[in-house]
């Protein structure tokens, strides 16, 4: 086989996600009453980018064969925190941004520490820490409120050169600054290795614990970036339990759509980003086709159900039933 075919095989999940997104977006844009204007793109990307950040966070953990059911709560917590801190002079705002990101990273690190050094199952551990993070968010914002440095918010949610949504640019920057170095670093490879086969990784002398810890910590950081952007879009902080849960759920949907294996070891954050954008676009299709918004949760649920069931088609290729059991 030629090199490019190996590359293609490796990127299949990601490319599929890109494909789904492109198709969905074309349907969306071509049926949008306003057509494909810069405004439509800006609104769509602002909504999509939020989920994209949270989905990236989820990807990092899922690659290590873990799961982070607290990403949505970290997202909410950092939103509440940002509505207190990202204010005032540029200096103060910068401090606030750093503090918010640091908080997210700490939340992720706590998850990582509990899962790796405490040896707890990620599902239970992160549900429990999620409760804690939500509790803190509720302490910060018992009622929706607060505000944010609007100049910064407008700059990051507006358009560059009048066309390009700056939130997309921000997403790109985050990918280049966090994901690309991570995925090409020794730790990143170790994260993949640990997710694919922990025994083999251990036997090969791979730094499993450090890699997982880095993955969880970076996941917290990425969720915090998401929380920060949520504040930029809404100008407020709100400890919304349902919203936190929804983001956790959607992040998993995005990861699945993005071709990231939930069993660990395979997939990329790029795929998850397109999975997130596709998922958002699918949800918004309803508006374009003028359905009652009441149907949206059901529609998203059904899309999710179908998306996760699609993977089952690989089952029919299994000739040895023992492979069912991994």
């Amino acid at each position: 086989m030629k090199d490019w075919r190996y590359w293609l095989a490796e990127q299949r999940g990601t490319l599929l996600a890109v494909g789904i997104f492109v198709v969905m977006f074309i349907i969306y844009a071509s049926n949008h009453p306003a057509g494909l204007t810069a405004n439509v793109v800006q609104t769509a990307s602002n909504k999509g980018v939020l989920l994209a950040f949270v989905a990236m966070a989820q990807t990092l953990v899922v690659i290590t064969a873990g799961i982070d059911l607290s990403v949505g709560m970290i997202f909410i917590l950092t939103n509440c925190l940002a509505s207190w801190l990202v204010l005032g002079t540029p200096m103060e705002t910068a401090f606030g941004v750093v503090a918010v990101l640091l908080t997210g990273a700490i939340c992720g690190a706590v998850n990582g520490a509990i899962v790796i050094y405490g040896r707890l199952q990620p599902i239970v551990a992160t549900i429990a820490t999620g409760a804690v993070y939500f509790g803190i968010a509720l302490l910060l914002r018992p009622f929706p409120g607060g505000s944010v440095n609007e100049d910064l918010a407008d700059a990051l949610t507006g358009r560059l050169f009048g066309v390009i949504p700056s939130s997309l640019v921000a997403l790109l920057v985050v990918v280049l600054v966090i994901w690309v170095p991570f995925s090409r670093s020794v730790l990143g490879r170790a994260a993949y290795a640990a997710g694919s086969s922990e025994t083999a990784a251990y036997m090969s002398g791979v730094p499993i614990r450090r890699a997982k810890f880095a993955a969880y910590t970076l996941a917290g950081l990425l969720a915090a970036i998401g929380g920060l952007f949520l504040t930029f879009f809404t100008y407020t902080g709100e400890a919304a339990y349902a919203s936190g849960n929804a983001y956790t759920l959607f992040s998993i949907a995005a990861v699945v759509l993005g071709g990231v294996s939930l069993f660990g070891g395979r997939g990329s954050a790029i795929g998850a980003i397109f999975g997130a954008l596709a998922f958002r676009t699918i949800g918004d299709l309803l508006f374009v086709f003028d359905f009652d918004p009441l149907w949206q949760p059901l529609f998203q649920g059904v899309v999710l159900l179908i998306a996760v069931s699609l993977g089952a088609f690989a089952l029919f290729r299994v000739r040895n039933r023992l492979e069912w059991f991994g």
Partner: protein
Amino acid sequence: MSATTTTGRFAGRMPKFIRRADPAVATSFACIILLLFLGSLYSSSFLSPEYLLQQLKVASFLGVIATGMMIVILLGQIDLSVPWVVAVGAMMACAAAAYGPVGVFLAIPFGILCGVLIGLVNGIGVAYLRIPSMIITLATNAVAQGLMVVYTGGFSPQDSAPAAVRYLATGFTIPGVPNAVVIWALIGAATVFVLTRTSFGRAVYGIGNRERAAYLSGIDTRRIVLIAFAVSGGLSAFGGVLLAGYASKAAQSMGDAYLLPAIAAVVLGGTSILGGRGSYLGTVAGVILITLLQSILSVMQMPEAGRQIIYGIVIVAMLLLYGRSPASR
């Protein structure tokens, strides 16, 4: 040789729940006593029979839901569709009651049936399509939520719980013992029997320990998994029905507060989240422990935020005490 088999037989005569008891169950019960002690320092009413009975009644709703969760966790799976299955059970029972006397009569079975149906979808996804349970149950949870949002128009439904449902949750058939507690006791007894005395129960433990070996032993593992998820769905929905009776009506996000407690109760009771190991006695302990903790926090007028934080920390702390996986080396 004969001596060893004799000890084997002797151990075999001991009740299973004693043999299966492990440090986790003991720790849970110790924590319950500790909580009661701490509570009694705060207010003497903590040790009054009325308070304890009231706690047991509140615990029984969680207990019913946690029972289904436990069976699924024993298989090495998880059921994250609890929140909206609880709501579906409650809403559908109330909805059925609106259809005249037949509806009232069928309210409870109909609510449970809806839960069983969602459970069947979960079970088909996990057993036949081999979708990770965490994912498929999240998806069905989303679908159930979507259905209920469409059905209710996004508001809590106006139908109130029928009298029978209210009686089931709050009435007394046996004087002094709330019906809800009786129901939990019955379900619990049935579960203990099924898990320890039936081939289904053995198969559940077998699959949880090593599905491949169970399959090669000639067990129809897919059917067992399917049934377990259906039972879990049914019990969650039944829990919802009882909750609707307790609160006199169903509400939009009434199930949200039951997912984490249900998982926590099962796991705190010493059931391995990886499956194959655990006893119902432990789950009972876990349920009571969680309920007491919630109650004490609310008696102390802890705000919701503080409750969530303490709650999460307690669960992590207790799991760190005894719920850890073995060290790799």
